[in-house]
């Protein structure tokens, strides 16, 4: 028989205890130590039967519970008259107090974590973009911030953000790849862009995606358009940017959008 257990693990012995307390409908402020210890040990024991690696924290808690149980079993000493003050102190020293305090404490953070999770789930549905590069607006003579204001970790986190951004953009590229853009379609697009600009367009702007097949298709489309005398390429001198425009007075041609799929 196969069991598909679909849950998160207990977050530790306190979490497990809280769970048992709830399960057994126990009052957290008056824990029956014997009962809870038995249940806890039972659980741990069964995990061991299943040959699970029981984390040491669970075993430490087991020991604590056993110790507590034995303390509770010790006969209470009759207080002497002169110890009246001490007796009050002793009353407060219920061996369960420490555990109760920890459980209550832990439970409130567990609840806070739950609330954070809800906020996270709302927030995760909102998308933003990474900040734009505004360095072109910076004046180079601008003074450097004081030493210590910028740390190595600022630098590293900037780099991490960059890598994260690249990772996010990746799937979009693979998606485009799979669609295998026909050269004809790309030719139409290029002509559209050139028409819209009514001006010289730099070579680079026609290659906005660092996606290999997109680059290849764009390049082939440009060659095809040149062959058909639809576009003209200019380059002032060696190694300067190439600019492209529609050939003036060229006879418009019919482009088959599905032509030679790459």
């Amino acid at each position, binding site marked *: 028989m196969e069991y598909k257990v679909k849950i998160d693990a207990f977050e530790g012995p306190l979490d497990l205890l809280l*769970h048992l307390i709830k399960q057994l409908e126990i009052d957290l402020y008056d824990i029956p130590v014997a009962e809870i210890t038995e249940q806890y040990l039972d659980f741990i024991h069964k995990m061991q039967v299943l040959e699970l690696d029981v984390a040491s924290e669970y075993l430490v808690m087991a020991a604590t519970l056993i110790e507590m149980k034995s303390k509770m079993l010790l006969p209470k000493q009759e207080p002497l008259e002169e110890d009246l003050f001490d007796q009050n102190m002793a009353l407060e020293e219920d061996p369960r107090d420490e555990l109760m305090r920890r459980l209550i404490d832990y439970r409130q953070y567990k609840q806070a974590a739950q609330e954070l999770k809800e906020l996270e789930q709302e927030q995760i549905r909102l998308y933003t973009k990474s900040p734009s590069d505004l360095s072109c607006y910076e004046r180079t003579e601008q003074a450097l911030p004081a030493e210590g204001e910028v740390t190595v970790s600022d630098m590293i986190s900037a780099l991490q953000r960059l890598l994260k951004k690249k990772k996010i953009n990746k*799937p979009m590229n693979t998606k485009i790849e799979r669609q295998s853009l026909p050269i004809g379609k790309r030719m139409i697009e290029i002509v559209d862009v050139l028409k819209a600009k009514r001006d010289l367009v730099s070579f680079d702007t026609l290659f906005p995606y660092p996606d290999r097949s997109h680059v290849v298709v764009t390049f082939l489309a440009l060659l095809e358009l040149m062959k058909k005398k639809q576009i003209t390429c200019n380059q002032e001198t060696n190694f300067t940017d190439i600019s492209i425009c529609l050939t003036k007075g060229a006879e418009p041609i019919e482009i088959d959008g599905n032509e030679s799929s790459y």
Partner: protein
Amino acid sequence: MKSTEMKAVIEGLLYVSGEDGLLLEQIESVIGVNGSDARALVEEMKQDWENDAKGLMIIDIAGGYQLTTKPFLADYFEKFVEAPRRSSLSQAALETLAIIAYKQPISRADIEDIRGVKSEKAIQTLVSRELVKEAGRAEGTGRAILYGVTTMFLTYFGLKSLEELPPLVPEEEDQSDEASDLFYENFRQTVEGL
């Protein structure tokens, strides 16, 4: 400058700032208005954008504003960005983060004391996601690292400030926890079936 133009400038600033968000002071210094006027403009923009043809909205985050997409777009974006934008935090990380947020500055030992389990890995995750940072050193021997939350923490959970954190409720009964109930039930059945 007319207020329409100011809005246009704010929109542009929000766009270039992206996920970093735009501080109120930045709006003030760029368009030369005071804080309350800047705030009023943004509030107006928020209202202007409440129509169906707008896909973007302005949210309040730590000391300023951020431009984000509206929640209903998430369904479409899951098609667009095939990987989830960011993985959500594990239960361990969330618990650790809650403790740090409410008790900061706090040492690892104190966190582990509250959780009852080792939390090194969880803290490391939170630091690497920039939700938590070193916030000083404890006095005394060892000078343990103390942790605190970052501005990113506020942004991540869409909070304006730490005061917006829901108050801790010690008395309330534990919320029913279906996940672990199920776990426990399955566990019991499995064991009994052995």
